[in-house]
């Protein structure tokens, strides 16, 4: 790896460049895990409660109430955004050998920003809905639902935390890839 005939600057910048690349790959893997956890947890988030509404003679009339993620458009968008983000991260990791070209790396960086924006907006919308479900809004006469559907709320909360962690990891990855792109700019001029 250390080129004896090469310039001094090449061997100096190689270890830093390798550290940046290794960090990027590990950040992308962690973000993949976080976003896929969030999408999967919210997608299987469903709770049904059966309540006795009335008693006719000796037969109780039961009615079941369901809380599912499909009922709230914000949660649907949350699942879709995190699924797209995890698929994109998986593809970006699998196709790494094809992306050595500088133009393609700029494209990957731009798509990274788009995916980060998706995850952030999904998490923000789901967080506002979750806050409403937990605290309600007494001015609009909207009652909270978390006291009745506890498991639904807990699972949704964990999915939300995973999505926020994924968003932070994606932000770090974006910042680091800008550093990686500028550092390659310097090294490619020295070649």
């Amino acid at each position, binding site marked *: 790896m250390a080129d004896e005939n090469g*310039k*001094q*600057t090449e061997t*100096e*910048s190689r270890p830093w460049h390798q550290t940046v690349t290794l960090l990027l790959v590990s950040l992308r893997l962690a973000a993949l895990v976080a976003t896929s956890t969030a999408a999967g947890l919210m997608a299987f988030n469903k709770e049904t409660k059966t309540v006795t509404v009335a008693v006719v003679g000796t037969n109780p009339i039961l009615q079941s109430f*369901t*809380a599912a993620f499909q*009922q*709230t*458009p*914000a949660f649907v968008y949350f699942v879709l955004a995190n699924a797209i983000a995890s698929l994109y991260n998986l593809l970006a990791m699998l196709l790494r050998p094809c992306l050595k070209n500088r133009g393609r790396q*700029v494209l990957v*960086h*731009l798509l990274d*920003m788009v995916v*980060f*924006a998706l995850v*952030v*907006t*999904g*998490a*923000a*919308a*789901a*967080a*506002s*809905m979750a*806050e*409403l*479900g937990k605290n309600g*809004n007494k*001015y*609009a*006469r*909207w*009652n909270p*639902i978390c006291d009745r559907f506890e498991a639904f709320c807990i699972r949704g909360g964990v999915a939300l935390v995973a999505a926020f962690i994924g968003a932070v990891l994606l*932000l770090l990855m*974006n*910042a680091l890839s*800008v550093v990686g*792109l*500028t550092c390659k*700019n*310097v090294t490619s*001029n*020295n070649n």
Partner: protein
Amino acid sequence: METVLPLPTLQISTATYNLTGMAKVLRVFFLLLRLLAVAATLCAVVIMATSHDSTTVFGITLEAKFQHTPALVFFVVANGIAFIYSLIVLFVPSTSLLSRSIIVFDVILAMLLTAAIAAAGAMAQLGKKGNSHAGWFPICDRVPNFCDHVMGAMICGCVAVITFLLIVLYDIHQVLSPKFP
């Protein structure tokens, strides 16, 4: 680490002349975009802050204010921060040290604005359509003035988000150019 190796002088002079014309046009365009960002964030803050409506149902007065919903408060605060930042950035000269920090803050604020408009959008959809599964009834038919104000503020917020994202794209273009300090 060494910097770029010096190119032949003739190549440098023609390259800088060609770049200066196009770079000047881009700079003027993005200065106008920053002015648009100032205007859009100010409009979003003002329109949302003046949203207030009340209605009387069975003798009980129901008031709709943006302070009742944390997502709308977050929207106002985020656009307020973006407005102050955009004003400050207009008066910062393009020296090298500050311009790097400005790029970082541009990205952070663009993401803050997108999160704010996403949260406000979720609340607005709920206010307009309600959620029959949770027993949450829509409120827009009872307080239409409030809903119109929120819609106007969200349109301004959307314009602000798109403007900030374009500014971030220009910052990336500047960072990736070979003449970046």
